[in-house]
């Protein structure tokens, strides 16, 4: 089968690569571009480990056809840091012990970043809503909620 050329923006950089017909965006990013930050969790859109943003909207990369990102702006957790300078959200996740095994963390960060980009001062309920599609098995969620709220400059009220 013929490969499909895709040109798009990946974490702010123009990229051109070939996608296989039917290949999903998660495989395209991981195998095609070597961006291993989106994780394969369930492969059916239930766990959120592969969360990325496309034109600013959170999407599950495992459910998106790679060829459909033609001309669009794709961002992943790997694009959050600026060189050695971490995104304030990443700092907050460290400070609040918001990661254990780390498998959900990239998806959590992308969901949280997308929330804060559109709503810089979310309520606790809005934070919960924003990460409700991201499953975590280790933390019990509370440290993640606290980390996101700390970046938003609000104190958590549990």
């Amino acid at each position, binding site marked *: 089968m013929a490969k499909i050329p895709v040109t798009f923006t990946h974490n702010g950089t123009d990229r051109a690569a070939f996608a296989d017909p039917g290949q999903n965006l998660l495989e395209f990013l991981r195998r095609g571009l070597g961006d291993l930050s989106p994780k394969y969790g*369930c492969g*059916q859109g*239930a*766990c959120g480990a592969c969360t990325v943003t496309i034109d600013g909207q959170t999407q599950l990369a495992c459910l998106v056809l790679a060829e459909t990102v033609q001309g669009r702006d794709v961002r992943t957790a790997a694009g959050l840091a600026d060189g050695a300078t971490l995104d304030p959200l990443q700092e907050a996740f460290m400070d609040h*012990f918001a*990661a*254990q*095994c*780390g498998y959900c963390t990239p998806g959590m960060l992308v969901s949280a970043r997308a929330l804060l980009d559109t709503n810089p001062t979310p309520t606790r*309920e809005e*934070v*919960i*809503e924003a*990460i*409700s599609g991201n*499953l975590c*098995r*280790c*933390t*019990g*969620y*509370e*440290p*993640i*909620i606290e980390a996101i709220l700390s970046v938003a400059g609000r104190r958590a009220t*549990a």
Partner: protein
Amino acid sequence: MTRHTGRGFAAINYPIGMNLGGDPSQALVHSNPDGKFTVALSAIDLGQGMKSVTRQIAAETLGVPIADVYVDTADSDTGPHDMGSFASRGTHRMGNAVIEASLEARSVMLEAAAEELEVDAGDLVTDGQGNIHVRGAPSRSITTMAAAQAAQFKQGRTIAGRGIFLVPLSDVDPETGEMSPVTTFAHAALVVEVTVDDETGEVEVVDIQSAYEVGRALNPGLVEQQLRGGAWMGMSHAAWETTEPYYPARDHGPVDFNHYVMPGPGDLATHHISVLERPAEDGPYGGKGPGEMCANPVLPAVVNAVYDAVGVRIDALPVTPEKVLRGLQANGGARPRQAL
């Protein structure tokens, strides 16, 4: 329909490690040409913080800055032997092995420093900042890096240490059945509050008050992280997670995360944690480790709270709405214990 509130209590004595084959862990510690140290372990950090804690233990024992220690758990084929990361054994078993290995490496490091400073190694102390000096005479000093480099490039000395922690296998006395399967227990007690809906059978865990005795909390942030996440998992095991179908048959059971349901960020219980520190005699710097005990006591406490709320005694986990409703039906309705 009424939502009933109930409170349940549970306590736990939790054995740290196990008895199989003495449950050994080994550690190897050596210095690198830059004077920093590598700790080789074969047990894996699953996110519980074992690398952080063993790094702290190694730095403390060696007497060097924590930034100068790297913990390598890369490969169980080539690393020293370990039984593994389970049984709440990590901090206790690996920590003790790391202390033993670090003590041996430290003594070689001090011998190397002593040769450079032309003093007796027994008179040397470390400041934890990367310096070794004569006790009471801080100006008679050498950096740990210089000592390591002298050992490696001048003296031909290997700054390294071996450690193992083993509790000899305890056999069962055939006459009395007596044995000593473990050397250390951790403890916890908690009170859980639930609400039970007597029309839908749904149980919601609304509050947890807990006290955990974990020996010395070697890294308090990591201890709290484990306790908070573990209690969430206990709550999930108690009232949410099951591969059993409600109706009508096994093949209608959950096969994915859409149906194997766990509490999400909107379903959390408030959880007040008290950590009681009673350093363990045979623990590394008194530590035992929270481990599996984070989750276990939540389950019986939830079951007891459901009994308190509606008088239904559940004896098979998890507490599903179906089991609650069947129990209510058998009892002829809710019988809140607090009303008795």
